[in-house]
């Protein structure tokens, strides 16, 4: 089978290939670097020089940039092809399914209206035929999705069998699962990454020099001089792209975790790219360590999932924890929901029965492989037999709190990666890395991975976990936005805005706005990448000046940057028809719908609403401070210049995307857009079951059903209310910012003087760093010092004592050895030598004396013989 047939038969491999291409690029660059290092010592010989120049010579790295950029561009094309194919297939099938469903409904209506019995029967037959066709088509689509768009192989098999599932054993799998969410993420990530690769080729051009002077590192001999690291930068980027795409590709939590750590490592490497700077090295460490805290939670979540469910595969997890939509007898009462109950007495076969109750302590787990005849929710009394040692085709149960804990654990991992409160402190510091890295990793892709994972795992998150997620997001978005207001470093402003926007996404997911949250993830990626690259362009143009207090009036000098950034600012602020508007309105509407039903969670709407205004204010502030008014620093202004085309072209492309990517028809309806449509398609039915409109027919769930419907209803009805409120606040924010920083009617210094403590509090980033320093870092250091002291005093003391003891013992042992052992050996030697020396005299060399000795020996032998003979005779 050649590669084209493979792609045709298994189009999911488009995405696998897209994932592997950056890995190949990484390995190529690594190999080339190794060869460069190997040939460098021979660069003055003719053959060595040829090789050395082939692998980059003194100006190495340019080739690496081309390879990496080409790789990611190929990955983009592959993803795009794959995704177009996927959407085409999807829409074809869905059109057919929709048509058939309409036919069925029409026929049923006609049948109901018809009076003639014969006609009725005919219509009935027709209806059954069409229904059969419908199930057939649906089955085909299901099959296609399960075979060509998703696959896996066993990576590690570890026996013995898993404790909770005797049939399966421990198997870790690698696989891929493409739905419209991951496909969309692929296209988005590869597209942005391609643009950022291009941008980096311009931005990092300094690193091409054989010797780079780092103005921020002071050594005893002035500034630090080092070799350029252009190639290394692109090598890291390639590794990152591979890891990120692998994360999106994964069909199981374990693979996600592996990629999760890989992107963490890349982040560490790239934040610490200028590792000679103390601040960069510290920031890299901080990012890594803070993420470790989150990952500890992630691992706990994974362990709970593994021990309780025996699988990491997303689909299998969801199948087990959520009730199926249908069983043998048709639609299920609690379709798509968590089913809880209490365990009751054991029956004869050792199984227990689970009595269904809506706040029971146990969660009913559904079989992975459905038996031939299957009751999803047990008998009419609401009792299900669960096996103590579950098999894949039987019901079992797990404690409900374990599921909550697993969800919280996985969410803790997402908190770390997506820089949510209280682990958000690393992201602003991570701005020490090069700006394209900030744009790619710390704004558009990696930090969004947390949101992506929450979205992926949504079906296994119970309501309690979701509430925690919502509140975390709500607190994060407000805290971060409030800090962003007072930041003066352009990248720090963007960093805090990123944290804030990620908070929006988390909030949306927590309140059941699955589509809204992930939609915002997409749109945010574009405009945040744009803003970061824009800031990078400004920083590059101002010769690595990041302080906005030294900028101002740069608009005439860098028009393209200013205009593209303006598009980004308007998008993030939520001006109508810019992408941010669609997604943020959706989030606010969802939040409003939620709090309408759950009145006591009012904050979950108020915080994002107020923050929408704050966001508009600080983003406008940033733009005005940078580009308008009188220049604040003449020196910076004098030397400012527009960036080269290599950097502006990505800006323009991203600006276009930031404006248009969510457009559809009618233009105000995000769900009608291509992007919104596709995100919508990826939504798991569990979301609808918890927050939507799956028809639960029993009165048992009537209240919940009403609640869920109300949420959606209110979200729908209040869309305009929420949107208009937010828009008003946004406009007020922008006007304020304009007045203060463009027209300079109001002086920000006055506000600073009026609220000095508030300003200091915000400048201090809500004292989080200080809090952590007091609560965590310093105690850790103190404990560390204690341990060090313990080590020095006690352990070292013991060791020194033992060492001294051993020395003392060995001294005496040495004396003993020398005197007695050696003495004995020497004695034996000496005695032997002396005897030999004496016996030497016997060897006279005179024949005649030998004869005498022989005679004497004969005499001796005779005497001895006589003696022995006498003894023998006597004896």
């Amino acid at each position, binding site marked *: 089978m050649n590669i084209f047939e493979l792609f045709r038969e298994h189009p999911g491999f488009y995405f696998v290939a897209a994932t592997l291409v950056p890995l190949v690029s990484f390995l190529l660059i690594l190999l080339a670097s190794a060869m460069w290092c190997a040939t460098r010592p021979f660069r003055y010989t003719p053959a060595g020089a040829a090789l050395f120049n082939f692998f980059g010579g003194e100006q190495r790295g340019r080739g690496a940039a081309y390879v990496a950029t080409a790789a990611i561009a190929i990955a983009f094309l592959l993803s795009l092809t794959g995704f177009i194919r996927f959407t085409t297939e999807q829409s074809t099938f869905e059109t057919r399914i929709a048509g058939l469903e309409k036919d069925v409904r029409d026929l049923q209506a006609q049948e109901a209206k018809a009076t003639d019995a014969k006609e009725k029967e005919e219509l009935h037959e027709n209806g059954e035929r069409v229904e059969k066709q419908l199930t057939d088509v649906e089955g085909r689509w299901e099959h296609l999705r399960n075979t060509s768009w998703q696959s896996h192989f066993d990576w590690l098999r570890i026996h013995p069998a898993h404790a909770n599932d005797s049939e399966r054993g421990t198997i870790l799998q690698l696989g891929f699962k493409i739905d419209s969410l991951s496909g969309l993420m692929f296209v988005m990530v590869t597209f942005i990454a391609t643009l950022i690769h291009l941008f980096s080729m311009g931005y990092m051009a300094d690193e091409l020099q054989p010797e780079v002077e780092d103005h921020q590192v002071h050594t005893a001999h002035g500034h630090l001089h080092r070799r350029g690291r252009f190639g290394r930068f692109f090598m890291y980027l390639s590794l990152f792209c591979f890891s990120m795409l692998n994360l999106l590709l994964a069909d199981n939590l374990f693979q996600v975790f592996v990629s999760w750590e890989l992107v963490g490592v890349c982040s560490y490497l790239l934040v610490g790219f200028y590792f000679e700077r103390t601040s960069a090295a510290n920031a890299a460490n901080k990012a890594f360590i803070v993420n470790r805290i989150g990952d500890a939670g992630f691992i706990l979540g994974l362990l709970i999932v593994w021990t309780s469910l025996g699988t990491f595969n997303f689909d299998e997890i969801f199948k087990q924890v959520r009730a199926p939509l249908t069983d043998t007898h048709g639609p299920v009462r609690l379709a798509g929901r968590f089913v809880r109950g209490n365990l009751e007495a054991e029956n004869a076969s050792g199984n227990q029965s689970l009595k269904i109750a809506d706040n029971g302590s146990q969660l009913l787990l559904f079989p992975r492989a459905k038996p031939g005849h299957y009751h999803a929710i047990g008998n009419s009394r609401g009792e299900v037999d669960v096996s103590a040692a579950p098999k894949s085709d039987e019901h079992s149960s797990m404690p409900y709190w374990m599921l909550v804990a697993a969800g919280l654990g996985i969410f803790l991992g997402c908190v770390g990666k997506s820089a949510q409160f209280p682990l958000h402190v690393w992201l602003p510091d991570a701005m020490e890395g090069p700006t394209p890295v900030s744009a790619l990793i710390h704004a558009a892709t990696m930090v969004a991975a947390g949101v992506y994972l929450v979205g992926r795992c949504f079906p296994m998150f119970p309501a309690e976990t979701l509430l925690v997620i919502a509140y975390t997001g709500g607190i994060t978005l407000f805290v971060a936005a409030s800090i962003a207001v007072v930041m003066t470093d352009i990248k720090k402003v963007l960093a805090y805005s990123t944290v804030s926007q990620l908070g929006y996404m988390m909030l949306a997911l927590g309140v059941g706005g699955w589509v809204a949250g992930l939609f915002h993830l997409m749109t945010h990626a574009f405009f945040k990448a744009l803003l970061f690259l824009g800031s990078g362009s400004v920083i590059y143009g101002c010769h690595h000046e990041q302080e906005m207090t030294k900028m101002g009036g740069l608009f005439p000098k860098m028009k393209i940057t200013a205009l593209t950034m303006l598009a980004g600012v308007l998008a993030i602020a939520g001006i109508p028809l810019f992408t941010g508007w669609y997604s943020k309105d959706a989030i606010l509407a969802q939040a409003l719908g939620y709090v309408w039903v759950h009145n006591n969670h009012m904050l979950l709407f108020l915080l994002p609403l107020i923050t929408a205004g704050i966001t508009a204010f600080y983003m406008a502030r940033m733009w005005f401070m940078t580009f308008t008014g009188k220049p604040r620093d003449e020196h910076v202004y004098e030397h400012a210049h527009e960036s080269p085309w290599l950097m502006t072209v990505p800006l323009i492309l991203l600006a276009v995307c930031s404006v248009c990517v969510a457009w559809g028809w009618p233009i105000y309806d995000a769900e009608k857009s291509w992007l919104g449509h596709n995100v919508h398609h990826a939504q798991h039915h569990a979301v609808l079951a918890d927050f939507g409109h799956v028809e639960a027919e029993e009165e048992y769930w009537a209240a919940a059903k009403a609640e869920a419907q109300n949420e959606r209803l209110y979200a729908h009805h209040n869309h305009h209310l929420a949107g208009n409120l937010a828009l008003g606040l946004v406009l007020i924010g922008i006007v304020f910012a304009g007045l203060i920083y463009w027209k300079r009617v109001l002086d920000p210094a006055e506000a600073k003087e009026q609220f000095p403590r508030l300003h200091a509090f915000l400048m201090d980033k809500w004292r989080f760093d200080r809090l952590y320093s007091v609560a965590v870092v310093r105690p850790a250091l103190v404990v560390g010092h204690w341990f060090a002291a313990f080590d020095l005093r006690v352990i070292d003391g013991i060791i020194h004592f033992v060492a001294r003891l051993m020395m003392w013992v060995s001294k005496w042992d040495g004396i003993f050895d020398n005197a007695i052992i050696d003495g004995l050996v020497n004695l034996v030697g000496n005695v032997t030598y002396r005897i030999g020396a004496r016996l030497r005299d016997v060897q006279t060399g005179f024949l*005649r004396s030998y004869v*005498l000795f022989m*005679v*004497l020996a*004969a*005499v001796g032998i*005779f*005497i001895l013989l*006589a003696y022995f003979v006498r003894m023998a005779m006597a004896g």
Partner: protein
Amino acid sequence: MDAFNSVIFYILAAMTGICALAVVLTQNIVRAAAWLLFTLAGVSGLFFLLRADFVGATQLLVYVGGTLILVVFGVMLTAQGPFIKMRIGVAEWAIALAVGLVLYGVLAVSLLASKPRTAPDDRVASAEMPDSTVLGESLLGQKDASPAGNVTGVPPMPNTKGELKTIRRNRAGMSYLLPFEIVSVHLLVVLIGAAYLARAKRRRLAAAPGREQQLGASV
């Protein structure tokens, strides 16, 4: 042994012992060779006395006629002057004599301590010692002529002729052909070896012509 034979024995024993002592005591090698001649002759006389005619004859032929001539030739070949004397110290003489006396004492004591064995009584003694014919046949492997089989082990002394015959019959089948042949080959080897050693000087000279010239010059 009867009285006549005893007298003969004492005469021969005295002659042999005195001549042997003379060989030891004389300082002149040529005289020593002469005393040795008489010693060997005395020994052969003793052999005749013991009715071992063939051995005695061989002793005379080989020793007196062969070996001793060889020794005399050796003396003549190596003599650097007439009546050359190589004296040794008195102390050495004393030590050697002391050791010799001790050895003789030990031997004599151990002999005399054992039960004296006299000749078998007449009936047995009348059985003749084997003559040269018997010996020759025995050496050539004639089974009938071969009286003895088991070389080791001392059978009880026979008291009658019948007993002796029985013992001989029991030990029949032994012959000395193989030792005889081995001795023959041994003699051949000795012959060749002696010849080789004797002409070694010439080979060395041929191998080192410089030395030949030197020797020639010195001669």
